[in-house]
């Protein structure tokens, strides 16, 4: 594999197997199994995705709700193993699939810095060296000593981003995280993303805010129903996407008008 490749996905498919009957218990499972009536509905969240990302590229991912964007990021972050296909990921990943996943609301902000960074795979010593910088970047001030349950969602997002980006990763993965937090903080986040990019990191961004993608990415892919619909320069793909979906009500305003299906 060429040295400048950061991600190579080859015909990745991922299937969520949803049981048609709810089989939450072993007893029912045994009964259904004996009757031979175990039927599953297969939901292919990703179908034959081929993707090669070079080191240092900034890739945006657009698509409607349920198109498979987050699933793709989970495959790249090694959270989900694809049903078929091979995924080669080079380097250290900083996955931000959700800001502050793994926060403990009873612990203080500072304690959560340690817990969260440990979950991301850093050692205690590494964290001790960075903790002041993390607290400083989050801009939380004295709030850092207060339990997390007193935080607003924006404050949690700021803390989560500060922790996850305290170390320069080889691949930074952002799932819909640039839209939380206030404008000043979003600007600081984008500044940091740019500095990562300058130091050679690969950046993947999923966002419904196409502006954020145009601002931060050079390349963009469009996922639709688990398939790759377009792959190209960010501006072209975003325009293509907006032409087809731009008029859909609610989709870009955060899906509020959309009825859940």
């Amino acid at each position, binding site marked *: 594999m060429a040295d400048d490749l950061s991600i190579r996905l080859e015909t990745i498919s991922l299937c*969520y197997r949803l049981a048609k009957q709810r089989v939450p218990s072993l007893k029912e499972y045994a009964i259904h199994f004996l009757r031979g009536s175990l039927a599953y509905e297969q939901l292919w969240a990703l179908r034959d995705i081929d993707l090669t990302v070079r080191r240092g590229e900034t890739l945006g991912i657009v698509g409607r709700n349920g198109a498979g964007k987050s699933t793709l990021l989970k495959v790249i972050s090694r959270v989900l193993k694809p049903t078929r296909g091979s995924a080669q990921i080079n380097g250290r990943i900083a996955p931000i699939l959700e800001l502050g996943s793994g926060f403990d609301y009873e612990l203080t902000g500072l304690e959560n810095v340690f817990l969260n960074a440990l979950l991301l795979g850093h050692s205690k010593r590494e964290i001790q060296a960075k903790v002041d910088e993390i607290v400083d970047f989050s801009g939380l001030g004295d709030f850092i000593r207060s339990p997390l349950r007193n935080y607003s969602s924006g404050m949690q997002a700021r803390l989560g981003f500060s922790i996850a980006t305290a170390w320069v990763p080889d691949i930074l993965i952002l799932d819909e995280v640039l839209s939380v937090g206030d404008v000043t903080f979003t600007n600081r986040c984008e500044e940091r993303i740019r500095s990562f990019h300058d130091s050679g990191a690969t950046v993947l961004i999923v966002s419904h805010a196409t502006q954020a993608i145009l601002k931060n990415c050079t390349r963009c892919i469009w996922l639709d129903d688990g398939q790759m619909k377009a792959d190209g320069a960010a501006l072209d793909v975003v325009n293509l996407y907006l032409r087809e979906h731009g008029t859909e009500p609610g989709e870009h305003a955060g899906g509020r008008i959309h009825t859940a299906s």
Partner: protein
Amino acid sequence: MREIYRYRDLIFALVARELKVRYRRSAIGFTWTMLQPLLTMLVLQVVFSSLFRMELEEGTNNYPVYALSGIMFWNFFSQSIVASMNSLKGNSPILRKLPVPKEVFPLATVISGVINLVLALVPLMLILLFTHHPMTPALLFLPVSILLAALFTLGAGLLLSPLAVFFSDVVEMIGVLLSILMYLTPIFYPMKILEHSPYLPLVRFNPVRSILEVFRDPIFRGKVPPLTHLSVCFCIALAALLIGAWAFRRSSDRIPFYI
């Protein structure tokens, strides 16, 4: 293995958190761990020594020490298993979003169980003193006994915790199985009473009994367990760990889909 070593600081943090939660919840906290064996011992003393008096084994008749060492071991074993089954479910937000090696959660649970067991040894030693039970250098063998018990328990926890993710009723089923297993383990009764019982083979070949005796020998009988028994237990513990680790590995990729 190397992956888990890389996350060792996380494991320590999880253990510390678990212990902190356990001791913060109850009003008297840490004191409880110390007090509980003493109270149990009082009850045992009153109930059993006045109700029926029998010779446990030749020479030794200290029923409270016999029963208490059994109870402490059993509590460690059963509580660790139930807790490791809940540990994956309890950390579902993490398992859905972060690429953490999933073994760390059952592992941290068993380690904090070991720490509790070690802490409970303090009141047990006090009881040995007060009841004038002979304390021999064999007590120094206890760390090995506890290590064997921990490996065995970890194996069982690794085997069962993914099942608890896939099927919601497994935790209850295991609860029932554990209570049956408890009666098949000589915790409250001496092996002697089974001499003519049809259940004797079930108890004798119960691996939990074998591991328990390794723990009980230094405390109650004041001797290091015989080498043959030790090697059998070592094999049991190792087999449990290998089977558990293998089963966990096999199913760990599917855990985020079901949790």
